[in-house]
């Protein structure tokens, strides 16, 4: 079980990553889709450089829940795959590691779109 400090760091680091996103939106007019792409790609690159792993160790969900964490899982999976199975592993590793999330997003996305009608904004 995590201690109180683990939760605190998850909150602080997770919040801080979101603040970076907010600054990008407010100051550069980047659209949300570009923000998402930027964060995932940065997550992959930082992980490849070995910079993201320490943050995950330190902040737990605070580093894994933001989209940079999705990039982290992709990169970590691909590196692990490459180590174990070579070139084929490099191709399968990333998607294998994140398959759960992607499959869940597709299924729940589909179901919600079938069930609910969109509402207008007031």
């Amino acid at each position: 079980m995590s201690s109180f400090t683990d939760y605190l760091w998850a909150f602080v680091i997770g919040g801080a990553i979101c603040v970076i996103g907010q600054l990008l939106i407010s100051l550069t007019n980047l659209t949300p889709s570009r923000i998402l792409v930027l964060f995932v790609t940065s997550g992959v690159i930082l992980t490849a450089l070995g910079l993201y792993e320490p943050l995950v160790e330190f902040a737990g969900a605070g580093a894994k829940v933001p989209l940079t964490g999705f990039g982290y899982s992709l990169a970590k999976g691909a590196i692990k795959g490459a180590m174990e199975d070579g070139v084929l592993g490099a191709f399968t590793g990333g998607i294998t590691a994140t398959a759960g999330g992607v499959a869940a997003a597709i299924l729940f996305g589909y179901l919600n779109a079938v069930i609910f009608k969109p509402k207008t904004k007031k």
Partner: protein
Amino acid sequence: MNRKIGKQSLIFENKPQFLSSAAIVGDVEGKGNLAEHFDLILDDDRWGEDSWEKSERKMFENAVKLAVQKAKLEISDIDCLLGGDLLNQIISANFAARSLEVPFLGLYSACSTMSESLLVGSMLIDGGYANKVACTASSHFSTAERQFRLPLEMGSQSTPTAQRTVTGTGCSILTNKDDENGMNVFITSATIGKVVDMGIADANNMGAAMAPAAMDTIVTHLDDTKTTLDDYDLVVTGDLGFHGSDLLYEICSEHGVPLSEKKHIDCGKIIFKAEQKFGCGASGCGCAATVLNSYLLKQIKAGVYRKILFMATGALLSTVSGMQGDTIPGIAHAVVIERGSRQ
């Protein structure tokens, strides 16, 4: 006799006269400043249809029917329906015209469509090509949002310069000057706008993109008709919003036209209440169309304003042009609306 004056302006000899007008708006607009003036406020902007696109065309169709009914006419008395909306291939207008079964000219000049339809309608009447025309423009927040911006359920914030598209349709029926049932409110001249692009690329800042076009049309109109701002009680722009109106004042005074808040109304600034918090105000074809066909015409008919320059402003962008890095061209057409006598 030549009815074209100056570079871009027209004088109407057989002054087209307003016969009736109608405005239908959505529930959010119904909570705004002008609620008491609208003919119909929807409880729900889907209006019982299964899509917002269908609701928008229903609004279009019913606004025309309502205006015709208020003029004590039949739909078949309309010689030509003119109008457009913001959706691709102006489907709201096209599909409404399908069920109305009247001769139809579809128009597009983005949010400037209301002035374009009044301008073309006036030419038809003055030229003797029609006795009664219906001039219409329409927009719908939920259809425009998904076409031009992001899906409605996306949890994103709007930028401070963003404006909210008005859900609403406005329709004016024009007749010739001798019609005794008319409102005694006439269109006396008009200026066809030029497309002006000052290099604004931010699709969330339409006010700034359109202000130079509005300035260009005002300056050209005054020049062509040899009038000054003193000849008008009011200059009305469509949807420049707060930011765009400020810019308009500044660039107008640089060109020797001292326009200020005293003599200017922007439909986008007045339609919503400040506490509704819609950033820089309202936008969309329906913005100028509903304000003109409810509040403004009532004010002119009542004699509060004698002569106004009505100028809806449009931003001529598409989703593709924006992504290809093009800047946003603006346009503004102007018509002069005057209270007067039939002589």
